[in-house]
């Protein structure tokens, strides 16, 4: 067990502790800014994953009509429905649990940050000596930076939320819960059936309330991390899906709209059918593909115009 603990310390805890302290030194000895920049850094590193996750969600959303068709066609035969659904997912390159990617990555970060905050903001001599074991001696000025000043605005970042003043006890959990709700709303997985819809609805409310409740037991610094992470995550989702750009009449969304994916999918099927026909009739398939692309381009342009 100790070896796992040592590995965890070396891979997660020590780099986190030292990153936080280094940011603290660079940002004018402000630990709140250190946590915020750390959060931004994590989110930036997770950005490719966020794009992938959103694509997955978009894909699943666009497949709803086809999944409904399958469910109606094979009504009563759960195994067949499941087979066809999985095969459809495979065709489209969709992973049904892909949307949980960020959560899986966030879990060790969250747990690691929780432990790192206790080490970085020691409340007793034992914790301060543990900090000494964790810091990298080669970082300049690091020994002069400790112990860290935990004050940020009105918060004591090392203090447990429920031991803080009344405004923090009420305000922080509400902010964490509300930001989690918003984040969930923008990243909601499309439901395939009514049961899943009700599960999604329950999770949409359950997770924010649960996290808000847990916030009371966490250090304020951890609550700050979660809040900022949710805000940045929500903004990223809005940018990825083009909702922010549409506000400013920009057309640079990073993930295609549902209808584009569906049309492209139809065109792929058309092309496939055409190729088969061309092989049998001996026509020039290249000319056909070219004309199909032109046709799909015209359709796409029509779709965009109608949207605008």
């Amino acid at each position, binding site marked *: 067990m100790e070896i796992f603990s040592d590995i965890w310390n070396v891979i997660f805890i020590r780099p986190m502790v030292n990153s936080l302290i280094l940011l603290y030194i660079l940002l004018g000895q402000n630990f709140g800014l250190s946590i915020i920049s750390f959060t931004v850094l994590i989110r930036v590193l997770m950005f490719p994953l966020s794009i992938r996750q959103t694509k997955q969600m978009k894909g699943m959303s666009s497949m709803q009509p086809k999944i409904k068709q399958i469910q109606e066609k094979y009504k009563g035969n759960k195994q067949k429905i499941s087979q066809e659904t999985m095969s459809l997912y495979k065709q489209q390159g969709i992973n049904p649990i892909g949307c949980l990617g960020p959560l899986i990555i966030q879990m060790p970060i969250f747990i690691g940050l929780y432990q790192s905050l206790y080490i970085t903001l020691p409340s007793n001599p034992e914790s301060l*000596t543990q900090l000494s074991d964790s810091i990298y001696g080669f970082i300049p000025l690091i020994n*002069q930076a400790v112990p860290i000043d935990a004050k940020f605005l009105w918060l004591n970042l090392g203090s447990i939320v429920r031991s803080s003043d009344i405004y923090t006890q009420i305000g922080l959990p509400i902010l964490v819960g509300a930001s989690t709700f918003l984040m969930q709303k923008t990243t909601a997985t499309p439901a395939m059936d009514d049961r899943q819809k009700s599960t999604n609805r329950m999770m949409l409310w359950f997770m924010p309330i649960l996290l808000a409740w847990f916030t009371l037991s966490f250090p304020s610094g951890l609550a700050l991390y979660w809040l900022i992470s949710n805000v940045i995550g929500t903004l990223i989702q809005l940018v990825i899906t083009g909702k922010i750009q549409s506000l400013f009449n920009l057309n640079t969304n990073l993930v295609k709209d549902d209808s584009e994916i569906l049309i492209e999918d139809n065109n792929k099927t058309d092309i496939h059918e055409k190729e088969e026909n061309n092989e049998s009739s001996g026509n020039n398939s290249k000319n056909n593909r070219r004309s199909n692309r032109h046709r799909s381009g015209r359709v796409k342009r029509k779709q965009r115009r109608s949207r605008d």
Partner: protein
Amino acid sequence: MNKLQILKNIKSYILISFIVSLCMLSCVGDRMKGSGWSTPFVEGNNVYIGTIEGELISIDIMTAKENWRASSLDSEFLPKSIYSKPFLFDGKIFIGTPAGKLLGFNMNSGLDEVSLQDIEQRVLLAEEQIGPVIVGNILSFMDNYIAIPSSDGQLSLFQYVQNEMFEPICSFKANDSLWAKPVWDKDNQQLIFGSMDGNLYSINKDCDLNWKFVTSSSIVSSPVLDGDKIIFGTLNRSFYSVDLLNGLLNWNFNDSKGWFWAEPVLDSGIIYASNLDGNIYAIRSNSGQIMWIYKTENPIISSPVIIDDFLIFISKQGELQVIHKDTKRKLGSCNINQKVYSSIESYENKIFIQVSDGSLRAYTIKKNGNPDELWNRPFFTGENDKRNNEDWDPLC
């Protein structure tokens, strides 16, 4: 079970794991529970120890039999573990608690003494019910004064009035916590102490500032007086010698790789300082020149002690070592295999150490430097601790 169901289950498992992790984090237990930080105190035939459970216990030195135990009687929700060392004053044993109280007990009976201040026979440093944490050792000086360093940065001076009370005299506020014991310079009538704000302060009996020496890092270790110098270490891996009269730098040494945490020991013009880098540094006090460095594998949090020509220290991982103070030759060792934060208390050729497993250990240092267990078993400080009745294999 088909693939889709399996994937749905995986989703559920991931979400459940996340929720369980959150539950575990929020129910992580008492993070404020101490680790046996308080140094034992020997007086007469008894050793006194402030425990992890917030009690003060008197134990017979030779037999390890408990004489009495007294509780701080703080609320269950307050941190309990005692950090500061007990001290003797007017026939009473006093201790500072993590709730900011100063408790005094009859050294023979352990009873609360009626001569203390308020109804609960306790002195509070602050007006609120809960005072700041007393981490550093309390200094008694000038026969009837005490100086209490606390976590809110205050050094509070009290005068003991016989059969009446501790009269508050004054207090000096530093910019950060005081974890180190102050030192009384009798010749110049000044109190000198270090703070986590990085300053070494000198104040008089009226708490007026004489001078201040600024370092770039926190001071946790208690300073040591050597003639006209005051010597101390910092968390910036530096060791300083400062003039007592004006606070000017004599020399400083900064070749260590870790923090100077514990109070150094002075013997015949040589300072012996333990470091969290695992080394013991022997430094000439008049010049700052290194005499020798003794290297170990593990951090040393506690202060070393000197008995005759032996320098005795214990690492955080529990390895007790005895070396020759001049030649640094290793003479004896013993591994307790438990974490040790407390400093060593010595009495004649015996040493006493509080260990993080909630025990008090006692050793005799033999003439060849080998440590030998003084008692048949450690004294486990928990009330009705079953380990006191179990079989025990001596480690030394």
